[in-house]
């Protein structure tokens, strides 16, 4: 049957190759091409969604690459990866629409983004450990160049920190994959084989788990290895930080579920209390630091740390849960949180980007009373902010509800993380109050509201935010089918 997954995966790469190949393309042409390609990829992803994902891995496509080593090109999706694929294609399409105003070196900008799209999709659909690692590294390289070339003032240092952090972080994963490979008796890199019969046990499994956890902790990020996130976000171009927050953080959490949880289940179960404690601390820490921020972008970056803390809490609870019901509940919450965080934080970064285009500052103090002047942008920011603080009826509530419900059942004391909701509420309201409400200072009088391009970018995300909040079952049915079947 038609290899839809592979086609969708390599379509952006084809676009990037096309852009590199014909240097004569004008800026507008490059934007148009980027849009068309990412649009087609979105169609492909919709096709994949239509085909649906069963309990295990479905739509699997396999081409032998190194049979004598057991490495092959294997791609496929399941309930956990399919929603993330959808999230990726949507966010990329939206950021392509948004970055229509990028003028300098637009061609290579588009090519890098298309490459990044293929790499991120690759990570979610890869079923072969080497392929997963290859795409994992390529996302890193692409993002480095995006930040380094199109970022703001301190971009070089931020890009370098980002690169060194995640590269050093990704090496333990390489060791873990090798460990798994050498542990599996018919020597193979097939992740499905790792999941069905976890190859390692005892100390080796624990070592592999720790290695994997370090890599994904850097990528998620989790406290103490999270300092690259705010620096990278503040310096990255708007579209870059939308992708960085929307998609790249999910690589870490997706890896945590796919590798740490499914491939070394008993090791994770032993380490679950510590991971849960760290997750709760990260969540609260993220919220507190966000409260201390005056720069809007850093504020949102730290709230991402908070939200990712909830995801890791969900996964840790799932690992520790004995009965499948609670495990499914916590995992559903974690996966849905990933998707909704992608949409909400993506929208927030876009809005802050639009604000930055107009005011060239991200300091809340300097802004004031903007709701009167730019009502469109203002109200959308309020919608996204309320979604981010977990207001029911919007994207984050169903996910956080499930995570906390699951947490209460397994680690009652860990539910102190709920305090995070109030702190986030406090910081967002303070942000809205200082930036949007109150008397508008005359500096911003001539500011004009959202342009057509900006509306086209933000409206789909707003619809998604309300959609996921009101009707989470559309996503949850698919996710639940897989999380139910995960028998650890």
């Amino acid at each position, binding site marked *: 049957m038609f290899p839809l997954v592979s086609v969708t995966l390599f379509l952006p790469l084809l676009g990037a190759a096309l852009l590199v190949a014909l240097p004569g393309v004008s800026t507008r042409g490059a934007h148009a091409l980027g849009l068309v390609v990412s649009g087609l990829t979105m169609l492909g992803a919709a096709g994949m969604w239509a085909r649906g994902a069963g309990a295990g891995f479905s739509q699997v496509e396999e081409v032998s690459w190194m049979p004598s080593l057991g490495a092959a090109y294997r791609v496929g999706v399941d309930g956990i990866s399919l929603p993330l694929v959808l999230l990726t294609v949507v966010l990329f399409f939206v950021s392509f629409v948004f970055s229509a105003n990028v003028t300098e070196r637009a061609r290579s900008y588009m090519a890098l983004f298309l490459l990044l799209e293929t790499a991120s999709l690759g990570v979610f659909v890869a079923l072969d450990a080497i392929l997963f690692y290859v795409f994992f590294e390529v996302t890193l390289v692409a993002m480095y160049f995006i930040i380094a070339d199109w970022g703001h003032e301190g971009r070089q240092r931020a890009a370098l920190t980002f690169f060194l952090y995640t590269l050093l972080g990704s090496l333990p994963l390489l060791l873990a994959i090798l460990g798994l490979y050498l542990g599996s008796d018919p020597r193979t890199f097939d992740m499905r084989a790792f999941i069905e019969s976890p190859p390692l046990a005892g100390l080796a499994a624990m070592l592999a788990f720790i290695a994997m956890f370090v890599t994904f902790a850097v990528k998620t990020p989790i406290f103490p*290895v999270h300092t690259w996130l705010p620096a990278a976000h503040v310096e990255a171009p708007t579209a870059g930080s939308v992708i960085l927050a929307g998609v790249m953080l999910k690589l870490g959490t997706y890896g945590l579920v796919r590798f740490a949880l499914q491939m070394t289940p008993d090791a994770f179960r032993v380490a679950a209390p510590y991971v849960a404690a760290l997750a709760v601390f990260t969540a609260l820490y993220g919220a507190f630091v966000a409260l201390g921020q005056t720069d809007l972008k850093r504020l949102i970056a730290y709230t991402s740390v908070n939200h990712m803390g909830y995801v890791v809490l969900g996964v840790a609870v799932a690992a520790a849960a004995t009965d499948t019901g609670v495990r499914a509940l916590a995992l559903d919450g974690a996966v849905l949180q990933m998707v909704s965080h992608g949409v909400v934080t993506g929208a927030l970064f876009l809005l802050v980007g639009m604000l930055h285009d107009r005011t060239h500052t991200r300091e809340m103090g300097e802004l004031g009373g903007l709701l009167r002047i730019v009502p469109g942008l203002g109200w959308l920011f309020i919608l996204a902010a309320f979604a981010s603080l977990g207001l029911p009826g919007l994207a984050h509530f169903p996910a956080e509800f499930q995570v906390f419900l699951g947490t209460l059942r397994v680690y009652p004391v860990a539910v102190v993380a709920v305090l995070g*909701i109030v702190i986030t509420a*406090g910081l967002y309201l303070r942000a809205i109050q200082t930036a949007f409400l109150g*008397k508008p200072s005359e500096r911003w009088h001539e500011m004009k509201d959202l342009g057509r391009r900006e509306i086209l970018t933000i409206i789909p995300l707003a619809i998604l935010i309300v959609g996921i909040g009101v009707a989470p079952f559309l996503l949850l049915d698919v996710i639940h089918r897989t999380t139910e079947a995960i028998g650890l």
Partner: protein
Amino acid sequence: MTSVALTILGPLAAMVAILAIRYAAPALALLGVGAALIGAITTLVGVAGGARYAATLPGLPDLPLRLTATPLTAVLAAIVAVVSVFVILYAVGYMKEEGGKVRFFAQMSFFAAAMETLVLAGDWVLLLAAWEMIGLASYLLIGFWYEEDGIAEAATRAFLYTRTADLGLYLGIFILISQAGTSEIPRTLEVGGSAAFAASLLVLLAAAGKSAQTPLQGWLQAAMVGPTPVSALLHSATLVAAGAILLIRAFPLFPPGALLIMGALGGVTVVVTGLMAVANRDLKRLLAASTSSQYGFMLLALGAGSPVAALAHLTVHAAMKSALFLGSGVFQHARSSTEFSKLAGIGRERPLVFAGFAVAGLALAGVPPLAGFWSKDAVIAATYESPAAWLLFPLALVGTALTGIYVARTLRLLWKGEKQNEPVAGITWMGAGLSGLVALAVVLGFALEPLTRLVGGELPKDLLTVMLGAGVALGGLVLGWFVSVDSLLGPLRSSAEKGFRIGGGFEQFVARPALAVARATDTFDGGIHRGVLGVGRVGLGLARVSRLTDEKGIDGLIFALVRGTRSLGHRARRLQTGLVHKELLLAVTGGALILALLAIGTLAS
């Protein structure tokens, strides 16, 4: 079942229409709320006829969302619908010259829909969702005139207060669902033992937050900066009632210990906020304090063990208090302020409105045969018959007295002084809304009987309490009218307005304990306020510290690493002298070292 759907979807559709068409907002809003009323009435009739509607919507996996129409919820839905209609009617007039009609009516319709969902919700998740939605609506509506300074701060404070208290609801729900395994409210209430006690206390915390009981009543005072229809609808009849509604619906869950705590909390609130009302200089803030106090009554009734009395008082209070607020709205328009000093003599100027205002006030004070008397009497009777009568009954009496005092004082202040008759635009619409509610305040007393029978439970009646209640109410009124506040409160007065917001009452007998209680609550109130924002300040401190560690600590590490390797590189390079003989010597010594290692290795193994 369509009627239940209509009650919710009516206002929701109106909201969408208003936002879409952005024209004729008031009409559309009225239409929406009217549809809700029709839906609620038909549901009520249906339910009265014995029908029970239930609908399940797909929600979270194995936690579906449910809507139920039981007698209790149907009655509540009807109350909300009725009050909404009248307030929206009034708001049409109130907002005539005001800008932002589209935003206002859209948010009001949104609120109505959310309130109906909360009332009709059959499972905890939907209830929690609606609970937070009305919090959002209150935030938006309080902050309607967000340009004026102070309003945004008040809206934020209101939302944060309720949000912090809502944590209690979150935790309570988690406990209930995990114990009962399902999110269906009736089934979760049979959960017993310590879980039930913990859950009930948590639910009580959330309800106290929403219904502005002490110590969480600070936000309601601040919320008065919103437009008056908002205060009328949200901050008197519906939103603040959500706390009481939640407690009434979750009543079976409460073990006796929790009931006592609830009753005590209610009683304390009645007295404290009553004192505040008495000493208040601003009409709307007075009415806000009185709202907290009246909800204290309902908690008293619940604590006394008769949810039906609480329901009755809730119903009646909704009508009376929104009427009073609507009246104050008219006065506000006339004198463009709600300070008593500015409102002197407005009574004479607007005799008709003042008459309605007075009737509603008297009903509130519990003057027979108005509606307030019946419900207040039921509450006093309930506290009298309850096992904890020794605590609850005296508090109820003092509360009634205080109510009498501040109603009378308000009327007196509004009546004396000469009139300056400025025109008030849209008086006809406002009049219509106001008169409807006043009529209700009068008539509703008689409707209580059939209502309680419908809900299945019967109003406690006791001749002694009836006489005593009426007597105390009249005494309060007389005191309020003739004795000036200074003589009533004495030393309390000055400090009361500023922060204590606590009135005097009987000098010796009441002052000292009230003052102590007031000071305690105020510091507590300030503490909570600082607590909520303090978390931020503490957080800020912590945040600033953690932000510093971020930049200095961990990033520094990475670049120190880079510098370290470079210096190692230079040292390695110096080894490369370029002189062959030195290099040869190094090579030979290297070989000798390897040989030595090897020798040790082979000998050791």
